[in-house]
């Protein structure tokens, strides 16, 4: 038996670090190739009584290139050694070939998108620096994204990418195929997806901080005067987000519903526990949420967790990636329709982070803060202009609702920063105060 309980906690995508692991057991094994490649579903049980499911592709007795043996070696079982198959080129290639041929292995279904061409003969490599999934790039052209933690139900990342790709949206990495399975209870679940890979791309966060870095290096110039001005990109990004929203509404429909004010106030209550300083602002914050009103607004499928780190600039377009939402929350919740303003607010919040993040760890200089605010205002305006030019409606016209979504996001950030990065806490707190001040105007 492979030592999963020792190996799992060393993996970056393992989410149970704050919990005590009791056991990690295989609950389903699907052979994929002779005796040397298989798929496993693991049930991880915690001391708190909870559990999570993870999945693994295991290559037996086939070590990857030297650089990856440390991370890929799961351990020994009897006289055989198991490795994470994604790091082994022939195994990774075999998985792609199964997708290309539309194979079925046990309960695992490998499905190519109609008309998709997959680089089945290509070399592969595992991408670095991912938090929740593991991605393999083939030949700089295709990407296999393996969801590590799996749940019953269709993963919204796969679902929305499929809808957008089939509708011809230029603002997603086109879906090429998928791998699905069933959980032990017989419910279908998404395991992995294959998309086109944008080789020459940089994420919006790196792009935006390049601009703010340039801004702060100029002693006197203002946001509209510096060479690193980002507003043209923000405008194009706004167009891209609006285009994706429109396609999602066209393909999956939209319906009027009340804004999720209750969720917002619940989140606020929970956040106060992590950030006591929020308590004195709670009354004002509730007023902002209430000002968003109870009248029904247009709700539809959205990205749900949009920020500058979830958008990629390629030579041709801005792409939206990672539609899966927060992997810790149940899939049904992640697929719930919401206002497109949540995504808009996510990007606006991200502009604040891009501007202020460079100042973290320094003593605060009000002059830099002031210039950062000019940069934020300029890029928010450009983004909203771009959004409005495609959507036909300007998100700023729904001022109270947009403020509620921004505040909701800032409250979530404050709780997160208080737990994980206290030195960043001032960023959302400053925003919360700004949003509350606006609320009283």
């Amino acid at each position, binding site marked *: 038996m492979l030592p999963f309980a020792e190996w799992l906690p060393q993996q970056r995508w393992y989410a149970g670090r704050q919990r005590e692991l009791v056991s990690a057991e295989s609950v389903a094994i699907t052979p994929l190739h002779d005796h040397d490649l298989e798929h496993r579903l693991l049930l991880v049980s915690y001391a708190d009584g909870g559990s999570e499911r993870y999945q693994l592709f295991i290559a037996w007795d086939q070590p990857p*290139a*030297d*650089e*990856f043996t440390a991370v890929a070696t799961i351990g020994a079982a009897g006289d055989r050694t198991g490795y994470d198959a994604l790091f082994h080129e022939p195994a990774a290639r075999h998985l792609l070939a199964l997708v290309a041929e539309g194979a079925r292995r046990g309960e695992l279904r490998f499905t190519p998108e109609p008309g998709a061409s997959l680089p089945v003969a290509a*070399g592969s*490599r595992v991408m*670095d620096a991912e938090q929740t999934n593991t991605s393999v*790039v083939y030949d*700089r052209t295709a990407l296999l994204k393996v969801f590590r933690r799996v749940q019953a139900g269709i993963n919204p990342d796969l679902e929305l990418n499929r809808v957008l790709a089939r509708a011809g949206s230029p603002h997603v990495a086109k879906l090429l195929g998928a791998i699905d399975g069933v959980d032990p209870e017989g419910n279908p679940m998404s395991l992995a997806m294959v998309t086109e890979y944008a*080789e*020459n*791309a*940089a*994420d919006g966060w*790196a*792009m935006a901080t*390049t*601009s703010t*870095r*340039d801004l702060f*290096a100029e002693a006197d110039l203002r946001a509209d*005067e510096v*060479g*690193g*001005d980002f507003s*043209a990109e923000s405008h194009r990004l706004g167009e891209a987000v609006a285009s994706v929203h429109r396609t999602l509404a066209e393909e999956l429909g939209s319906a009027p519903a009340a804004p999720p004010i209750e969720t917002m106030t619940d989140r606020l209550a929970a956040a106060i526990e992590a950030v006591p300083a929020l308590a004195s602002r709670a009354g004002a914050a509730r007023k902002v949420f209430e000002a968003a009103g109870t009248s029904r607004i247009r709700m539809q499928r959205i990205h749900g967790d949009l920020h500058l780190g979830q958008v990629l*600039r390629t*030579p*041709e377009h801005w792409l939206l990636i990672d539609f899966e939402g927060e992997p810790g929350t149940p899939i049904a919740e992640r697929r719930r329709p919401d206002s497109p303003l949540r995504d808009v607010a996510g990007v606006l919040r991200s502009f604040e982070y891009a501007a202020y993040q460079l100042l973290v760890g320094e003593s605060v200089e009000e002059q830099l803060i002031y210039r950062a605010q000019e940069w934020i205002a300029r890029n928010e305006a450009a983004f909203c202009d771009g959004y409005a030019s495609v959507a036909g409606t300007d998100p700023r016209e729904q001022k109270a609702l947009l403020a509620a979504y921004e505040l909701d996001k800032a409250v979530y950030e404050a709780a997160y920063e208080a737990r994980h990065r206290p030195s960043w806490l001032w960023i959302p707190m400053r925003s919360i105060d700004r949003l509350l001040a606006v609320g009283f105007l």
Partner: protein
Amino acid sequence: MQQPAEGSHVHEGVVEHPAASDFGQARILPTDRNWFQRAVFYEVLVRAFYDTNDDGSGDLHGLIRQLDYLEWLGIDCLWLPPFYDSPLRDGGYDIRDFYKVLPEFGTVDDFVELLDAAHKRGIRVITDLVMNHTSDQHPWFQESRREPDGPYGDYYVWSDTDQRYADARIIFVDTEESNWTFDPVRRQFFWHRFFSHQPDLNYDNPQVQLEMLNVIRFWLDLGIDGFRLDAVPYLFEREGTNCENLPETHAFLKTCRKIVDEEFPGRVLLAEANQWPSDVVEYFGDPDTGGDECHMAFHFPLMPRIFMAVRRESRFPISEILAQTPPIPANCQWGIFLRNHDELTLEMVTDEERDYMYAEYAKDPRMRANVGIRRRLAALLDNDRNQVELFTALLLSLPGSPVIYYGDEIGMGDNIWLGDRDGVRTPMQWTPDRNAGFSRANPGRVYVPPNQDAVFGYQAVNVEAQRDSSATLLNWTRTMVAVRRRHEAFAVGTFQELGGSNPSVLAFLRQAGDDVVLCVNNLSRFPQPIELNLADWAGYEPIELTGRVPFPRIGQLPYLLTLQGHGFYWFRLNRPAEVE
């Protein structure tokens, strides 16, 4: 009887031209049909380079005198803007006689002497040929306006109204209001895409086509290595079109090419077509033949985007335009440049990008001209040596044959107080002596004053001072040109962008067979790290090209490099077997 050196003349209503056989012939370099794919070009204005007869204006003998310098620098080919007889209302692009050299520059025989001296040093020479139009003082036009029914009556595009071809844009928006101008002599309008003193030739007249083919043959017979075909998209006009890139224009260029291939193999045609790359590739002709129209074409949209990318510290303006650039036929090549004798043209950018470029690179309205910026490289870059080097490295490593503009190799500046585009056409700065060592004439007689700016003036910036110090821009440029020459990949290699998560870093591979060059450029003024996916080259060892410094071998993991602000690396990738 007219002397050949005096050029064309009118005899009983007929314009008679000299023949090539009236002159000497330069020695010819061995036939090489693809030399231009590997060449480093140098654009030099005869007027601005060196004055040997003390009249304040450069001349052909001056160019001959300075050929040793150009050979030392490592130049393969000179590009001379027009030196033909001209009233000089458009820097010589208004040609009065295709068969005569502007007297202040010298004679046709002097030009043959220049060709011969250049060829002796292995340097080729091409010149501008303006095919689209002539000066209004050209005898063809004078005859055409005087005698509408005479042999030249149909040499130009005449019309009773100024309403035809209304879809054609006006190019020189600063000076022209219409593409039609009324001629009081003939009492008709004549068509001109550029200045109103430059009537367009009528290519629908077969006689005009023949005349221009004769002009081409004349100079090729003397030994010239090719032509930069000026303003080439505009030869024909058709109602209901924008009168650019018409099929008839391409057909005529194919005829020119056929003559070159059959009668003068190894000579080149370079198209000046300020258009989008997807339109420009049409000027290379049929890819199945390896190209049967122009051998080369300038890549105009790339240049402003290099400036934009560095100011924005983002590679995407460059990545975008290169991704939009279609492949070109096998026997063709792009010409790329940072600056030339014209304004830094901003026709092939969006309105938003143009506003941005003006704001960043032409803060003073005097720095602008037509749709562009009239400044030199070093001045555009605030004389920042690091940036000048980065730009030059990009020029020498991006796909295409590089064109260096005279004086940019020493970092000359511009003089925005001079009119039109003269600000970037000041005398070459040879020494700190009177007139920058360019001329011994009375300073008041020099065609425009040499640059006397405190930073860019000839006392600070000149060849003499830079030649003897290895740390200077001049010697640095010479070194990089020499490094480039050692690697076939720079000239004819494939181009592959490597991406990378840092948007400020532009990394690409050039590959020609076994010669693999990796170029990594930091477009930001701040130090930057980059992790490159080079797993395809695992086992290879990068060798830095200027110092042959070995870098750590490439493995399966992302390859980490750090670059200083505006820094760059050129590496060759050594095969694993060679590493041992």
